[in-house]
């Protein structure tokens, strides 16, 4: 049990510390693919450091909610990163929150971000909050359906059990999971504010979603939000890997497998980040009102995956 707790703490800390690195890697890949000279992979850390040292500038009419939200969002994302099995599957904390609760944590962070965006009462803030809620009202149930498909296969909503089942599955690939995987990719793109739903590197008023919400934040509050965004990307990547490419993860009590698992994880993340950058480079951002269609497709695919499971019983 004590090694379990130690492992849990180590894994969570590792996720928190390494999440900006993944962000840096994706940015680097994107710059390479677009023929720009790339920023160093550690650039996100430098940005965070700079932001933490600055004085916070807050609007006169900001309420306590505005200052509280970044901490809340960061705590939620840290918790989410703690639940998802990245290198080891033996997490004593995971029975406290299953996949449905994981969706709940993401929702909690999102609602706080949207509320904080509305707090100052600027045109961009409310615009961002509205668009974020628009994107999420389809993305959230779709994510839940993806998890349901995986849960139906493994007869459990506990992430470690799901991952354990899928890592030792009898089929090469489940037909229902194929649908779920496509849906999951679409959802992660939308939830992490990436192209084609949102563009993380724009401040162009007509297209912003996520950036519009955090316009009024500065210094340490902005740093915490940026860090939480990196953590979210990391968590989603880890989730995708755990659900659809779980091979190589260390099973319960097998400490010797840890170094290999870590290596496998890093390789998968590097590959995943590169693929994400590639897809972002070759696709264009869709118009805002095409986003519900995009997400509606994801939702439909996820429900189809679940239906297929019910029909085929596999």
């Amino acid at each position, binding site marked *: 049990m004590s090694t379990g707790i130690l492992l849990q703490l180590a894994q969570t800390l590792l996720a928190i510390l390494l999440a900006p690195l993944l962000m840096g890697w994706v940015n680097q890949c994107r710059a390479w693919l677009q023929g720009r000279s790339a920023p160093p992979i550690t650039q996100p850390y430098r940005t965070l450091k700079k932001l933490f040292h600055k004085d916070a500038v807050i609007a006169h009419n900001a309420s306590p909610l505005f200052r509280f939200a970044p901490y809340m969002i960061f*705590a939620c994302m840290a918790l989410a990163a703690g639940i998802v099995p990245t290198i080891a599957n033996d997490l004593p904390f995971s029975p406290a929150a299953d996949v449905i609760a994981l969706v709940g944590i993401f929702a*909690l962070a999102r609602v706080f971000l949207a509320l904080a965006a509305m707090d100052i009462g*600027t045109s961009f803030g409310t615009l961002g909050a509205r668009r974020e809620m628009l994107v999420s009202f*389809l993305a959230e149930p779709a994510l839940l*359906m993806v998890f349901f498909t995986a849960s139906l296969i493994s007869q459990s909503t506990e992430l470690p059990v799901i991952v354990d089942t899928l890592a030792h599955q009898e089929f090469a690939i489940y037909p229902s999971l194929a649908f779920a995987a496509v849906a999951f990719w679409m959802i992660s793109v939308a939830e992490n504010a990436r192209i084609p739903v949102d563009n993380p590197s724009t401040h162009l008023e007509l297209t912003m979603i996520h950036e519009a919400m955090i316009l009024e934040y500065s210094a340490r509050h902005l740093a915490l939000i940026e860090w939480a965004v990196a953590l979210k990307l990391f968590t989603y990547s880890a989730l995708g890997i755990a659900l659809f490419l779980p091979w190589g993860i260390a099973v319960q009590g097998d400490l010797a497998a840890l170094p290999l698992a870590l290596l496998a994880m890093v390789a998968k993340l590097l590959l995943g980040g590169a693929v994400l950058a590639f897809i972002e480079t070759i696709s264009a951002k869709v118009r805002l009102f095409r986003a519900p269609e995009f997400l509606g497709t994801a*939702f439909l695919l996820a429900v189809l995956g679940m239906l297929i499971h019910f029909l085929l019983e596999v």
Partner: protein
Amino acid sequence: MTNGLSSYFTDPVQWAWAGVLFWLTLGFAALLLQQVPQLLSRLVFPLGALGALFIAGVGVAGLLLPASAVVLPIGLPDLPFHLRLDALSAFFMVLLGGAAFGITVYASGYFKSMAAGPLALLALWYHLFLGGMVTVLLANDAYAFMVAWEVMALSSYFLVTTDHKVPEIRRAGFLYLLIAHVGAISLLLTFGVLQGGHGDYTFDTMRLAEMTPFWASAAYLLALFGFGAKAGMVPLHVWLPEAHPAAPSPVSALMSGVMLKTAIYGLLRVTFDLLNIQIGWWGTLALALGLVTALYGVIFAAVQSDMKRLLAWSSIENIGILLAAFGLTLIFTTDGKGALAALTLTALLYHALNHAFFKGLLFVGTGSVLHATGVRHMGHMGGLMRFMPWTAWLTLIGALAIAGLPPLNGFVSEWLLLQAFLQTPGLTQPYLNMVIPVAAATVALAAALAAYVMVKFFGVIFLGQPRDPALHEAHEAGWPERLGMLWLAAGCVLLGLFPAQVISWLAPVVSLLTEQSLVNDGNWLMLAPVSAERASYAPLIFFAVVAAVLLLTFVWVRRVYHGRVRRSDPWDCGYPEHDARMQDSAEGFGQPIRQIFEVFMRVERETPDPFSRSPHYHGASLDKAWFIFYAPIARVANWLSEQAGRLQHGRIQWYLIYSFATLIFLLVFTTR
């Protein structure tokens, strides 16, 4: 039978009846206290709140003790009142008492500035309403049930029309009364079918009656219609968005939080207790109706601009979720999946309890906002968090709870319901295997939309800049109001943090209706309804970890770096001019939903002329159900009464001729 008082008030059912009598006395005493209006708010309502606490206590006793019954020699000769308190009634009494305590404490502050005469009447109807609801839960024969049901309907009608000088409120009251009575007729017919021609209307004989599937289905359908009308099931929901905004806020809170649940109680009572067979398609029907209701309600909630109307539509959504859970319970019961039925029923009861607390909280929250600002339209609000922090933070708890966010209570019932969907494969009816995933997706979609609605509700009212300069004078609610809200908010938090305990209290109700009990595989910290391997959730650990990480981060940021803050104007991408009107209005925030789901709505839009000196904008998204179902019925009814009106001229000769002709006709008819 011993003599004296000691033979009375020995069973929970008699204590409950004593509570009802206490409320009735209090209501009529209020009429006498008109001369001393201070006493009304300082004494009558606090005493009423104590009564609610007592009823909740009796409910707890009823859950622990075996069922008890009593026959009261009141009512018509040969038709005494039969009362009975079993676990199902007891659970709903806990719900009623728990929510009504907070709401009544709130009411004691809310109504204090009302004039003495109307206030005394209001206190009478208020306590009659409470007493009526408890009697509905206690009734053990159709006669007592219908009398209590009517007392509940009529007293709430008078409460809705408290401001009867406003024409819209009279209209809303009429609509409510009309649908309540259409429903009541259906219930009367239900009991008519249930008694099976024996002429004995006690529930005890109904329980024993053997019904053919045809008549059982007839009774079920009538009950679904009658209770659905009270609960706000689509398409019988139209009265809710009219009546809830019209009523004073504590009354809306009681109606939405508690009264709608009496309909759910009735549905459970008739289907699982009085009818001794259940048929599979009943469940599918209820599930379908529930899902339609849930989705319809939440879509319309997203496009409302009146805050209380928004909450009323959100109540329709929650009733839809309860109905869907009810349908699912029926499906599992008829399919022989007892353990799953127990799980679903637990989710249903839990959600009913949760809804009483968070919807009560949100409605009384809007009451404070209404007192502070005098408007219900969210387009005139904004930034109220700075002027009324208590109301804002407590309402935030309710909003997060109703949006189904962990670790609050709304999440627990949603979690339980979703677990039920996940355990489903292997039903004997193949078509159900297609229905269940779609149903799960719909519930998830409704829950996600509820978060949208609540961000809109809280953000537009409490956050941003005040859209009206008068808002700077908005005042915070008084202490009784705050205490009432605090109680309801505490309910939301505690029900969210200790689900394992709540579920163990629900066990007697669940085993009464499904003959199965839900075993919690976890411990007091952990909720694991089927087995710990399959699913578990520990909100207290969840909460502790979030709080710990939050504190650690805060301390770390402050320690390692600094806490320096500069205040300045908002940046807003560098635009120099800021105006409160540049924020999203209530209509604006709901616009994407309106655009996506426009098929369900009739949208009215009146945009100003660009050169107009006093620009005016009007937009409304109206319920198409009204135009499809109700407007034709109203037209037919109008046409019929117009035809009948042709006979009336107001001339005495004509009426004499009518009487004469009738007399001749009858004479001819009878002598033949």
